[in-house]
């Protein structure tokens, strides 16, 4: 039963989560661009993985208006993101904040990259070793041939 109701809720949400267009006028173009950037950066809390810009859900509309209000009030981008963070938590920010829980998220890629360099170097080094072995084998063959000659 729970699953069924939940499924229905999802459906309603999903249908609301399509493109949305607000026709707000901003005092200047700069602010409009900041507004656009902010609503693309913030996640709609109700939908399945869409940002505020891409959602028609009621909460997304309210939050867009809130972003606009805060911008007109002269708040900085950071203050607006913090405002949302205090209310909706990590979930609402598409760029996760750096804290203890996200250290590996932010530094993992660097770690992978360094590991790749190490693996590359170690493979190249091992290859040299086997290359040398091959040379050694040729030398060995030459020595053996020389021995064979001596025996003749």
């Amino acid at each position: 039963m729970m699953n069924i109701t939940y499924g229905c809720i999802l459906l309603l949400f999903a249908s609301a989560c399509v493109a949305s267009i607000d026709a707000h006028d901003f005092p200047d173009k700069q602010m409009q661009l900041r507004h656009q950037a902010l609503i693309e950066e913030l996640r709609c809390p109700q939908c399945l993985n869409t940002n505020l810009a891409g959602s028609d859900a009621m909460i997304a509309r309210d939050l867009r208006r809130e972003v606009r209000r805060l911008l007109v009030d002269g708040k900085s981008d950071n203050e607006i993101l913090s405002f949302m963070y205090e209310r909706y938590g990590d979930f609402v920010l598409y760029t996760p904040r750096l804290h203890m829980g996200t250290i590996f998220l932010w530094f993992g890629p660097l770690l992978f990259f360094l590991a790749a360099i190490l693996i590359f170097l170690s493979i190249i080094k091992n290859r040299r070793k086997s290359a040398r072995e091959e040379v050694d084998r040729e030398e060995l063959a030459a020595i053996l041939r020389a021995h064979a000659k001596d025996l003749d």
Partner: protein
Amino acid sequence: MIAELGHFSLILALGLSLGLTTLPAWGVQTGNITLMQCGDSIAKGLFFFLLLAFLSLCYAFVVDDFSVNYVASNSNSALPPQYKISAVWGAHEGSFLLWTLVLGGWTLAVTLCSRDLSVDMRARVLSILGFLAFGFTLFSLLTSNPFERSLPVFPVEGNDLNPLLQDFGLIVHPPMLYIGYVGFAVPFALAIATLWSGRLDMAWARWSRPWTNVAWAFLTVGITLGSWWAYYELGWGGWWFWDAVENASFMPWLVGTALIHSLASTEKRAVFKTWTVLLAISAFSLSLLGGFLVRSGVLTSVHAFAQDPQRGMYILVFLIFVVGGSLALYAVRAQGIKSNTTYSWSSREAMILVNNLLLVVATAVVLLGTLYPLAYEAFSGGKKLSVGPPYFNAVFVPVMVVLFIFMAISQRSRWKDTKIDLLLKRQGWYVIGSIGLTTVLMLSLATFKSYVLLTTTIAFWILANLLENVFQRVNRKRWNWNYLLTQPLSYYGMLLGHLGMVVMMIGICCTVYYSVERDLRMAPGDEIELAGYQFKFVETRKFTGPNFTSDQAEIVVTRDGQEVISLFPEKRFYSARGSIMTEADIDPGLFRDLYVALGEPLAQSAWGVRIQIKPFVRWIWIGGLLSALGGMVAVGDKRYRKSRRDDLANFLKI
């Protein structure tokens, strides 16, 4: 009645797949040739019954048999006929049946196109594919049976297909994607068969190459179509969202790309044997993981199918069995395999190694970002975290930039060893030339941007190296252009594949940095100027479609007084589901798209309107299709066709 036929066919397919798993394998273990060869006919039967099941479901959709649950919840008698067919794979059960059918198709293809495989290897490969088919069919029957009826009471009208999916894109995108996804099962099966037989040799790499190429090409087409579909259908002009499900299809693609390159070095130079096997296992494992992520509901995504933990549990167990088993076999059987081939650090082998490592890092980065929210929730006691496009762009793009720099340098590399001065000769001039070309391009578009300078310069630099490669071949034959006709198809495949990436890079770069966008309120008669185009809002009118009603606006676009086009964006209301859809209208062009979408109705017959101009956006998809074409062309290479004779010759030599 037909639905029962489909259900019965699916049960028969289950039985046949069990036979396909066991009989050839038993033949291999006991040395019984007849048993080994029976796989061919079982595979044909398996495909036949899967096809029959699939066609029965199609039939149920066409005749609006709403007593079948799946039809009732995904179709409607007013749904246009072409969408009734695509509705078959519009939700979980049917799309999984398609997935299984595609696997059956690939298995059939193996029986038809691998005469050069030895009898025991073919038996092994078929047995492995049979096991996968068994797992898929069982999953279908146990947890997601599309033929389930709701008798005696059933709805007289269906719930309709999700309007987002009522579109040409959905007719073609999933089948292409699935052919690609599931296609990696063949190199996977070949890799496992090789480990099983213990004969990890170059012949294995040559068998795998064409299969990998075809699967990769289909996956490329599938992803490209998905991106195009999202662009025009979701109504806000985005073409890639770093959504969990997109990532799920992107990861096998990245590993598949690495596999194509690594197979080349394994076949030609007998290097990286175990590594290549690991990539073949990983590519398919990531496909399965993708299936798990989409269908289990552990991740929230715009694409997620109806969520059911039981299904997720089944796939997870299957995943652990298949992938865990394969990797365990790998750990045991890849022991002691060494290649004695030598190569220098500037050789083509080394370049391919760099390519592979970077692609694996890229995959790992995408995987980290996709699964991190899950891990975070698991370890923080239920706290939620979002990882979105800004993160992926920040960590993925740098890896790609390094990869593309190597793509430019490596075009000249030779097997075994490349002299450093050969590798670097003239490259300085190419870079300078590319910077010049980029600057011209940027100034013609708008403004100088440092990111564009970096990426587009690299794109032109790669292009310079590709062209040089062609010219040098001709030059060596004293400018005899006919010489190009004698080049193997795989050479052209390589050129096209890389050219596609160059085209895509330019497209992505220009779209991201030079798109202009305005959201505004427009009433009839209003006019606005954007990047040299005049957009005039003429009027809106209502009209009725087969299963929706629509408000359609007319917007006339002019430039320098000349009419360019009239665009008709719509806001549609689909009554069966009560959902509203934004249908954008687009004037496509090679160098720019004009994109107009309708928002909400406002007071006094005015509407919210979004107008976008997206330069070079088509290049993204053209690039993807060119690369896919490259993958296909390479398969036509003569080498793969005469390999059987070569094998015999090799055998006699030994």
